[in-house]
């Protein structure tokens, strides 16, 4: 993307309008975070392809597998992650309007959602164990554990990045005119939500 390479980073957050809307034609966050996001989306994409292939080879296991999972846990985590994306979007509007305290509050709400996701995932894995489900059960559950645990790790370090952004905000690092770092954390977090939007129906819903 030659256009991206020619964009000076100092210009990324310049002249931000105070109406809460991002500046048109910009690169949200910075170029480095987009290299990371496209790498991660490719990684999740390869996992989804592996899922399709494994399902074609073991159709009976992949028909029966989702019926043994705790769909409620998957559904709750979907609602929690979508809500966390909403909280982060609200935080971005707040910082662009120089409402720093509101921005911090919305980011804490996102942290709450991340913690809720991790707690639900722990309960779900415990529930699986109690029902005799493990990574060795069959091919469906091997793929299920690989995909969902990988996603769980992303939620963990994505939550850590939001905590870092809160700390930086409290140190006065971001403002309406300069919030490139915060925006990078925000778009990375949305990427984690996007991966789950595909993963949830694949693993829990479709037969």
């Amino acid at each position, binding site marked *: 993307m030659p256009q*991206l390479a020619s964009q000076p980073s100092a210009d990324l957050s310049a002249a931000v309008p105070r109406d*809460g809307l991002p500046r048109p034609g910009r690169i*949200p966050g910075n170029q480095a975070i987009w290299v990371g996001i496209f790498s991660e989306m490719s990684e999740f994409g390869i996992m*989804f392809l592996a899922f399709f292939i494994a399902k*074609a080879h073991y159709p009976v296991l992949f028909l029966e597998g989702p019926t043994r999972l705790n769909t409620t846990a998957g*559904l709750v985590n979907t609602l929690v992650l979508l809500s966390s994306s909403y909280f982060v979007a609200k935080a971005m509007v707040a910082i662009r309007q120089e409402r720093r305290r509101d921005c911090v509050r919305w980011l804490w709400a996102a942290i709450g959602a991340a913690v809720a996701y991790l707690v639900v995932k722990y309960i779900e894995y415990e529930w699986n164990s109690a029902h005799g489900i493990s990574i060795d059960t069959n091919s469906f559950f091997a793929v299920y554990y690989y995909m969902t645990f990988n996603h769980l790790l992303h939620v963990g370090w994505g939550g850590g990045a939001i905590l870092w952004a809160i700390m930086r905000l409290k140190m006065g690092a971001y403002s309406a005119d300069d919030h490139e770092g915060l925006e990078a954390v925000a778009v990375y977090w949305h990427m984690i939500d996007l991966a789950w939007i595909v993963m949830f129906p694949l693993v829990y819903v479709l*037969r």
Partner: protein
Amino acid sequence: MKRLYQSLDVLWLLLMGMTLGTTAVAENAHPGLWMTVVVAVVVGIKGRLVVDHFMELRTARAPIRHLMNAYFYVFPTLIVLASLYPERLKEWTTL
């Protein structure tokens, strides 16, 4: 300002409703191609909504916006194709 805030609220409720609705239908309906198509379409719509509005890419540079949106055309399509042609996929991926 107020309109932007309210549109995020409406979008959040819409995403919640779509998630609850499709899960309820999929859990109670007989598995089949039409259900797969419905779920794939909803995945595409939800992905586009998050990319455009929460990720705020609708006004961002075209290469980033197009690549992210393409993801939510390609994978819903693959979900349907994998459901339609499992035997061919198995044949292509058998070593």
